[in-house]
């Protein structure tokens, strides 16, 4: 009984229970299988958007649940997503440079 209570309190303090993590992993595995299926099945015009959406969903799930950002301080989210935002900015800046300045 004590162990069960401790496990519950532990899950509340640190995010999720072990069963919760396994459920997240199963969802991630299923999304990966769906991603790989795009290599074999023709998704037509949905090919690129579906792959990008699945990539973002997997990224957010790992960061939110496995890295506990969903349950931790917002300062951690700010630090991480600021870095990510800057990285995206670098990509678009490089893309614009190639588009406009390099023939």
């Amino acid at each position, binding site marked *: 009984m004590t162990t069960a209570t401790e496990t519950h309190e532990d899950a509340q303090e640190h995010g999720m229970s072990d069963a919760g993590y396994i459920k997240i992993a199963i969802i991630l595995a299923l999304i990966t299988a769906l*991603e790989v299926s795009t290599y074999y099945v023709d998704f037509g015009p949905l090919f690129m958007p579906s792959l990008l959406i699945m990539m973002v969903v997997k990224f957010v799930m790992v960061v939110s649940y496995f890295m506990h950002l969903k349950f931790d*301080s917002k300062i951690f989210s700010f630090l991480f997503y600021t870095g990510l935002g800057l990285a995206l900015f670098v990509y678009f800046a490089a893309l614009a440079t190639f588009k406009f300045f390099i023939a």
Partner: protein
Amino acid sequence: MADIATHDTDHATDHGHHSSTGLSNNKLAMWLFLGSECLLFGGLISTYMLYRGRVQNGPHPSQIYDIPFTSVSSFVLLMSSLTMVLAVSSAHRKDDSKTNLWLTITALLGATFVGGQVYEFTTFYREGLGFTTSLFGSSFYSLTGFHGVHVSVGVIMLLSLMGIIKKNKITGDKAEVVELIGLYWHFVDVVWIIIFTLVYLIPS
């Protein structure tokens, strides 16, 4: 008053040193490091995306990529994130034996991924894609090579962590140390999630 002070000190010892924000300095530093790592990989991924079509006389990505093989590698790395989070969970429950078990499995899965990458690089080289063959080759090896080095460093960190847990040499909060290495490991996994889609699944 003295009781409160003692309680605060105990709490700080339990959960690492805290900053004026009330957050652990170690965790804050790790998140700051991961934020800066986003920039490193952002630069490498951007370079690959811009150069992947420039194959010169070398092989084209679609001629050399082995998607089924890379899919299995990706799955292995994804599952290592699960075993890592289970190690962190066990560490919070102060269950050292289970923590070490999950850390061992995570290290093995990481080593399997690195082994797969070495095999992939060897195969690509034999098929004519060297580091200087084309801009595609340079940017591909730089990106995936840097990622492979990160995974290798992660495996070394996991093995070192297992050693210091067994020798009981962690003086502060053991669970936090496992969690910090876990954060690094999950970051390596999320970078691969992006690489797998942008590099392997979306054709140039």
